[in-house]
């Protein structure tokens, strides 16, 4: 499988990465280089193998469903690039 320019443009949009038209050919070549190298995995027989999702052997723990923190509004907002009172501010989304 190899990527064409349209696919690179689509993937960049999915990833919310602005890519200049002039950079598309370089990216396309780099990504195809990496994907071509990854292609060797198709040679491995994985029939019936359960996919390994996590890094640890243990099953994820459940925790008690209760509030463990809160009341830290100023800490949450401290790094906001833009804020209005107690809110994160963004460009107008709804006309």
């Amino acid at each position, binding site marked *: 499988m190899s990527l064409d320019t349209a696919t690179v443009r689509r993937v960049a949009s999915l990833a*919310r*990465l602005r890519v200049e038209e002039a950079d598309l050919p370089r990216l396309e070549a780099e990504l195809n280089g990496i994907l071509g190298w*990854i292609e060797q995995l198709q040679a*491995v027989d*994985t029939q019936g193998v359960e996919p390994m999702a996590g*890094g*640890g052997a243990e099953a994820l723990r459940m925790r008690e469903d209760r509030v463990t923190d809160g009341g830290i509004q100023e800490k949450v907002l401290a*790094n906001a690039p833009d804020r209005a009172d107690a809110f994160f501010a963004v*460009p107008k*989304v709804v006309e």
Partner: protein
Amino acid sequence: MTHPTELTIAGARAALDRREISAVELTRAHLDAIAALNPRLNAYITPTPELAERQAAEADAALARGEGRALTGIPLAIKDLFCTAGTRTTAASRILGNFVPPYESTVTANLLRDGAVFLGKANLDEFAMGSSNTSSAFGAAENPWKRQGEEDTFLVPGGSSGGSAAAVAARLALGATATDTGGSIRQPAAFCGIAGIKPTYGRCSRFGIVAYASSLDQAGPVARTVEDCAILLGSMAGFDPRDSTSADVAVPDFAAAVARGVKGLRIGIPREYRMEGLSPEIDALWQQGMAWLKAEGATLVDISLPHTKYALPTYYIVAPAEASSNLARYDGVRFGLRENGEDLKDLYERTRAAGFGDEVKRRILIGTYVLSAGYYDAYYVKAQQVRALIKRDFDRAWGEVDAILTPATPSAAFGRDEKQDDPVAMYLNDVFTVTANLAGIPGMSVPAGLDAKGLPLGLQILGKPFDEETVFAVGGAIERAAGFNALPTLRAAA
């Protein structure tokens, strides 16, 4: 007395406890060394001298009260991937260039609990993605080691924990925190002639560590001796309910295991690690390591890990997939850089284009692609299946052996301008280390010799899950046999 920056952590502990040196003196010696050498090495992105002075004074007061703990007064570098409350944490990215965490990572909180002094935030590859520390938005860190006769060549310290390793090798810290997703502790440790251990997945909490690939990321220490790594890991490790993958297992006395010896241990030598094109120097070092362990009473066992050659391509699906998801949070809204746009989507896209470097963008794009509709099964599920086979290879090996010995890296440190044109050539640096991340097992790099140009080379010890003690025992035996005492060209008090 030994110059303070030449002490080991164990030696500094003893000197502090005997009042032969104060914590303030020890810290100032390191701050002076940082002031002198960091402008050249760029091992620290953000030195924190005022914080360090304050913590050192508190350490002296604690020692005077008889309340010293394992690391009271020990000056450390902290990889700038660990959130430190009130101290800028950048992940070496423009997108977090002004981020000041309001909270402390669990690993650094554990070190502070035990009295450590933080000298500053160490350089790394952007978001820990790299093997050379050249992708840092704050400039490359330099390896303090030089090729003989090529003193002007800028060598990389490895990555991603290149700043941590360079700082410890150049005597700008007694030890450092690091993280390892595909080799980011062990490869820079090998390149800089120091020791480093990636513990078992789940051993150290990931809470407060800027995430790269969550099923592979694991924190660990780098230091100049195996014992110092054991001391640091003992403090960093432990169960944390705030990390759902943190393992609720007891933390043993790692330092006690270092002198245990290898008599009676079965050491696996995996034939698949003798790869085509393996450098004769690396092979000779590996043979030497085998001979050392045999002479100490270990038994060598030929083993097979048949899926080894698929580990790197598996990693380059799993890690970018997780990264593309983890890095979705950098959107210019709640923290970090913002580039304004015409609408919200344009704001996201401009922010991320301006905030991320080339390698991070490549991995986000690969990850987005392998997770996208129509490709998910062919790439992502396939990689997860091969990962299961790689883990199964190790599970089977543990029936025959107690630990595994391999080279740490396929070469010594390389020049800044080498391997930069082809991403895949750079990825091959992690060929010996990445299997441990995929299988979730501990791996340690120990300096074991020099190449023909006088650069350090490391050997790697792999162990069973949650059996870091045997890894430390084998590491200690190699350290004693190697008697590695070469010094980097650039270092404090040199």
